[in-house]
């Protein structure tokens, strides 16, 4: 982190001499006080918004003992090489767990997906602890829907055999 060091070097040069003479314990006490004062300022001026805290409290409802979590294994935002000239490419996501894969493509217009191994499934599009919409995957494991609403979302898929829920993320 060289840029980090650059930021401090200037300061060092200015009072490097004093710093050595500076009583360490005294300095540490001062640092602790200033940090504590800043902590109080942050609690006043930049607290966790109350509504957001409530969403996190409510998120306990998302604790789902029944479902297996399919982890994000491919995200075009991170893993894909950008295609030249394509300014707003679709977001390609792949979620996987033992034996089950869910491919999802999200654009501004909607979402299409493929469940593997192919087969019918009931799908809930979760957008928080309280809200979801329903989709159905056909016999080939294909499904389409509207683009997920703003904010993080997850898919909860109920196949004949099991329940799988995809890792939460923002589309």
């Amino acid at each position: 982190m060289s840029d980090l060091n650059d930021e401090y070097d200037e300061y060092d040069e200015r009072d490097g001499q004093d710093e050595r003479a500076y009583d360490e314990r005294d300095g540490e006490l001062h640092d602790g006080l200033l940090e504590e004062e800043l902590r109080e300022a942050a609690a006043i001026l930049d607290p966790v918004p109350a509504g957001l805290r409530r969403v996190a409290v409510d998120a306990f409802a998302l604790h789902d003992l029944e479902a297996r979590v399919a982890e994000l294994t491919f995200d075009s935002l991170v893993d894909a090489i950008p295609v030249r000239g394509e300014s707003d490419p679709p977001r390609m996501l792949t979620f996987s767990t033992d034996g089950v894969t869910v491919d999802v493509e999200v654009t501004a217009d909607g979402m299409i997906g493929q469940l593997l191994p192919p087969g019918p499934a009931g799908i809930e599009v979760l957008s928080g602890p309280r809200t979801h919409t329903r989709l159905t995957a056909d016999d080939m494991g294909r499904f389409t829907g509207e683009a997920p609403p703003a904010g993080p979302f997850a898919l909860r898929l109920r196949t004949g055999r099991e329940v799988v829920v995809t890792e939460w993320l923002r589309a």
Partner: protein
Amino acid sequence: MAVGTTRSTAYDGTSYTRGGTVDRADVGALVQSAADGDAAAWKSLVDGLGPLVWSVARSHGLSDADAHEVYQTAWFRFAQNLGRIREPEKTGSWLASTARHECLKLLKASRRWTPTDDPQLLDRPSDDRTPEESVLDSEEAAAQTERVRLLWQEFEELGERCRQLLRVLISSPPPSYQEVSAALGIAVGSIGPMRQRCLRRLRARLEARGTK
């Protein structure tokens, strides 16, 4: 003003603990209780670790909406993995690291679609009025209010790196250095010296303004 985080040894980054680690001692047990269905334990986790998650989102210079989404994603994912996390006592680091990765991803996404810098962000008044804020509005507390505002103003004018480090360090209760490391992707051993330099920079700024 209470001294919450006095250190006893030099900055080797490993041999001392911050005040926060004491508060964090129960985290493993709370996670276990929550996984067993105890909603009160979950709430304690939200209150104990939520400010850390928020500080990670705020320290990455995201838009307001993105910061909200990062905070939510971290908690949704934690709820989803409750009972599956291998080291429940390190949940603070898990949440901080999850939030950090989401921040980096949103920054990447916003670079694709919109300019990254959001100069509005730093001046944004907070959404919700805390009881402390209401107290500060009273006449007799005016001087204290002014002091807090000045302090915050100088803090926000620090370099980006210092602002980022301090914003996470000053979440409440104080995070452990392991959590700060997970939040910012920096080595635990470098946090102490960086913290010292940043705080002394801030003090120098305050002194220059004649407010310390």
